[in-house]
């Protein structure tokens, strides 16, 4: 084992990590927003709307993420082309981001839905009784309380997503793992670079998990 080349390679590994974190942050943000919209649709009294949302969630929870990533890599440019009528070059980053957002939204939806359902119906009634409409009651009363309760679960899901971002290697995006692999190959230290990458993933995920557990305990009191 020879880890000597890792230090000089840190700048290029950091470039990969930046892409990983960027993708993660945008996917979490987009996934939670879309997931919340889906959750509200699923709980809607409109059966068509709730049926569609339910089908969406069940579908994306039943297929592999890798499939979604590769499929969107091919499909997103085609769909855009079809909508706009012109050819638009969509980078691998964008198509991956869309895939992650759409896939993760299915999981975030279930977390958000459970969060909203954990807030008593009485709160909603109180909001309505004060004259709030549905949008105000959700935005001002239900969602703020629900998000507070489900923050640990949303973070836990995001830690899983952090690890899953490494699947972008399938479409050739240079994230942290792919950077480590490429660099290791060039330097002839493939094993060492992969071990190092594994250690980094472990420290970040486990560290974040520990923090989330502590937060969960504090919120539970």
């Amino acid at each position, binding site marked *: 084992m020879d880890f000597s080349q890792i230090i000089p390679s840190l700048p290029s590994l950091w470039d990969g990590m930046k892409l990983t974190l960027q993708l993660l942050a945008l996917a979490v943000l987009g996934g939670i927003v879309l997931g919340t919209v889906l959750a509200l649709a699923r709980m809607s009294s409109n059966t068509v709307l709730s049926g569609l949302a339910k089908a969406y969630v069940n579908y994306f929870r039943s297929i592999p993420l890798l499939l979604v990533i590769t499929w969107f890599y091919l499909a997103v440019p085609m769909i855009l082309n079809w909508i706009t009528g012109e050819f638009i070059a969509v980078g691998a980053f964008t198509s991956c981001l869309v895939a992650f957002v759409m896939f993760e939204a299915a999981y975030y939806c279930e977390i958000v839905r459970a969060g909203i359902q954990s807030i008593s119906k009485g709160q909603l009634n109180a909001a309505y*009784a004060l004259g709030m409409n549905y949008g105000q009651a959700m935005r001002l009363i239900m969602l703020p309380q629900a998000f507070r309760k489900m923050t640990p679960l949303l973070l836990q899901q995001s830690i899983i997503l952090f690890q899953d971002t490494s699947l972008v290697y399938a479409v050739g995006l240079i994230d942290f793992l792919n950077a480590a692999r490429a660099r290791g190959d060039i330097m002839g230290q493939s094993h060492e670079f992969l071990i190092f990458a594994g250690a980094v993933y472990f420290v970040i995920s486990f560290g974040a998990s520990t923090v989330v557990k502590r937060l969960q305990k504090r919120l539970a009191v």
Partner: protein
Amino acid sequence: MSMIAIKNVSKWYGDFQVLTDCTTDVKKGEVVVVCGPSGSGKSTLIKTVNALEPFQKGEIFVDGVSVGDPKTDLPKLRARIGMVFQNFELFPHLSITENLTIAQQRVLGRSQDEAMQKGMHYLDRVGLKAQAGKFPGQLSGGQQQRVAIARALAMDPIAMLFDEPTSALDPEMVNEVLDVMVELAHEGMTMMCVTHEMGFARKVADRVIFMDRGAIVEDCEKEEFFGDIDARSERARHFLSKILQH
């Protein structure tokens, strides 16, 4: 003039009929107490008044506005009717001040200053001005319920609905809430109160309604209701004998 007119209202949950042909009327400035055994439909009836519970048959008018009419702007109607719940339902993520002002600002479009002034006025009236900066979780049950009443009053309601406002409270806190309600009644507020506090009913009610199994069994003047217990229906007598023992 009748402020709340309930006409032949029936409601079903699937096959189960919760309300059966309920008809009553609350005049402007009147205080009506609704009592009855658990599960008799009191909460359901009072919630149909501000459309928190839909109903399938009959009509309800609040200040002349039909509650069941699909064309009625429900948020607008509800904003004019105050409601106080058994479990207070203050918003736990908002401070007492924000609880008092949020609907005034977002629903009535009042300025922050105006909402604040109104909110503080009513908070003072329920004797809790010193608690303005706290959060609901830091107050006792009785204090929370008084804030909830202040929150409803700050909207300048034309009528107030109470659904067992004291039954979730420790006994020593019941009176501080009832005192506020008595004062409100004396000031001429139109009130429909689901409660088993017969002392309150005797003191301020104009009429008493007794419900059983989804139907209004008794609906009479207070003097008549309490005056001759033997003239009441058997179910009402049974109910009264149970709660008056306490």
